[in-house]
């Protein structure tokens, strides 16, 4: 079987495992969804009725097949605190989360990779120590606190940041929707006012969300670069008289890239977890803020749906990373 087909086929049992896990979490853990749904004070008869209506009185395997059937029909459940289906809610909010996560990922790469390279090429010099300490601190930073401090400083005190409410100034119309990403759409439609406003709204939460990933990407890039930098072909390239930037950029980085890409793939899941927190703090109208609202309203169908989505995204992104690495380094496809 070709490599791509093999990798896609290998994803199916993982996907099934993910679905079983989420099902077990909701139905087997000692919590009682019917009780939660009906409320703590509800009479036992009411709880019983809710249980019947939710199908929780059926045998466990029957519930499982019903759940899988619902998923196959694209039914992720009903969000009773907003009165709409979870799929509808997700569809309207997904672009905001994609925009924020992608922006954070781009920032993390733009900052993390150069820091890692500089650190590796100036190993054990002061700049290496500074960047290593910074990346340790960055990885230890609680996002929800960092976000609040950014708002306190850059909005509350300095006034550099627009009010942390939404994706664009409330006085402006969002750009015509093409991709759903405001920054991209306003670029495509040439709407400069919308572009400026949406960038100003995006950059702060994106920086906060990127902190942890930047730190880890810098760290992994550094150690990947250190692995290759001592090798013979790098010495050959240097002794041929190639300029240092060419040696680092074309020879070393290309061989360190698969490691960095793998970390990026793993970070994607972290970003989705971080998005929950970041969106809540910046009232960013994406999936994350919706899920925390749902949690506070003890509306758990969206939480489960988000969990499923996050795992699926993780599996798909890591598949893409493997395929990309396969192109970059064909040896990895023979493992």
């Amino acid at each position, binding site marked *: 079987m070709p490599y791509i087909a093999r990798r896609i086929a290998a994803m199916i*049992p*993982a996907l099934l*495992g*993910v679905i*079983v*896990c*989420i099902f077990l*979490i*909701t139905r087997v*853990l*000692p*919590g009682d*969804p019917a009780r*939660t749904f009906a409320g703590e004070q509800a009479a036992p008869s009411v709880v019983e009725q809710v249980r019947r209506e939710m199908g929780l009185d059926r045998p466990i395997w029957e519930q499982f097949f019903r759940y899988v059937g619902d998923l196959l029909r694209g039914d992720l459940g009903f969000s009773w605190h907003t009165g709409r289906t979870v799929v509808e809610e997700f569809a309207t909010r997904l672009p905001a989360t994609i925009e924020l996560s992608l922006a954070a990922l781009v920032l993390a790469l733009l900052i993390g990779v150069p820091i890692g390279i500089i650190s590796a090429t100036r190993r054990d010099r002061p700049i290496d120590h500074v960047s*290593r300490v910074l990346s*340790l*601190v960055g*990885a*230890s*930073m*609680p*996002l*929800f*606190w*960092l976000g*609040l*401090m950014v*708002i*306190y400083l850059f*909005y*509350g*005190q300095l006034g550099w940041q627009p009010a942390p409410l939404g994706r664009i100034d409330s006085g402006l119309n969002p750009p015509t929707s093409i991709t759903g990403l405001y920054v991209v759409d306003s670029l495509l439609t040439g709407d400069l006012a919308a572009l400026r406003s949406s960038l100003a709204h995006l950059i702060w939460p994106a920086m906060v969300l990127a902190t942890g990933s930047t730190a880890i990407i810098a*760290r992994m890039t*550094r*150690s990947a670069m*250190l692995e290759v930098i001592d090798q013979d072909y790098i010495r050959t390239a240097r002794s041929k008289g190639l300029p240092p930037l060419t040696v680092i950029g074309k020879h070393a980085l290309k061989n360190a890239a698969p490691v960095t890409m793998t970390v990026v793939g793993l970070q994607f*899941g*972290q970003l*989705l*977890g*971080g998005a*929950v*927190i970041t969106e*809540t*703090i910046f009232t960013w109208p994406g999936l994350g803020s919706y*899920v*925390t609202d749902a*949690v*506070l309203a*003890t509306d*758990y169908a969206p*939480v*489960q749906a*988000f*969990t499923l989505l*996050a*795992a699926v995204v*993780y*599996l798909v992104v890591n598949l893409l990373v493997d395929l990309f690495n396969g192109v970059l380094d064909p040896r990895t496809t023979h493992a």
Partner: protein
Amino acid sequence: MPEPTTLARTRPTTAWRLLLRNRIAVVGLVFVALWTLGALVVPLSPYGAAETGAGPLLSPPGADHLFGTDNFGRDILTRVLAGGRVSLWTGLLAVGISLVIGVPLGGLAGFLGGRFGNVVMRVMDVLLAFPPLVLAMAIAASLGAGMTSAMVAVGIVGIPEFARIMYSQTVSLRERDFVDAGHAIGLPRMTIFARHVVPNAFAPILVRATLGMGYAILTAASLSFIGLGAQPPLAEWGVMISDGRGYIISGEWWMTTFPGIAIATSILGFNLLGDGLRDVLDPRLRTSR
């Protein structure tokens, strides 16, 4: 003869001395010791952690209240120290859950191998596909909001990491001469596993447990911040930051700043200590040269 795979197994005092010579580890150790000490001295504070009106409402840091007071006039320093007690316990118990389930699972999977080992490790891979915070949210939500739910959720989420480390350790230890020797003298398999394999995998597990403390404190505080963990009025760092959220723009920075610094330094402490332990216990495990 068990080969001395780690310094910790054979010469604990040497390992300890090496640890103290490692600057990074010492900084970490200081942070951890500071918060532990803080948790112990809570009763010495003139104020109660839940005492409303211990001072004027929302007074900035000053002589009477070093970290200021919150919107109920509670002393923030006392609450931060008491929060450390909650966080350290939560971390310890959560890591305990991951350890007690993950180590035997991964160890047996590696030691026995075969179909059992395969199934266990595939299940662990599936759990690793979930972003940790998201999975913890789903579990805590199912269990119902509360500190115990948060702790259990964080504990469950940590299981696959321990299982994976233990698995790879056991797979390599299984081939060692001392295991063959055990079989040769007729020791039961489980005795070899419990008495000879598990102790030799001690070093990486200790490193992971230390790093895991930081992660557990962070995740539990995040859950509390969202509303799935500790509930107000409990003095817990995530709850305190959530309480202070409404006072950020009006300028009462101290309500969120101090619990935030507490979370950051305690996590940093465990991360540094974990990194230092890794360097000392097993130089081969170092991620950064």
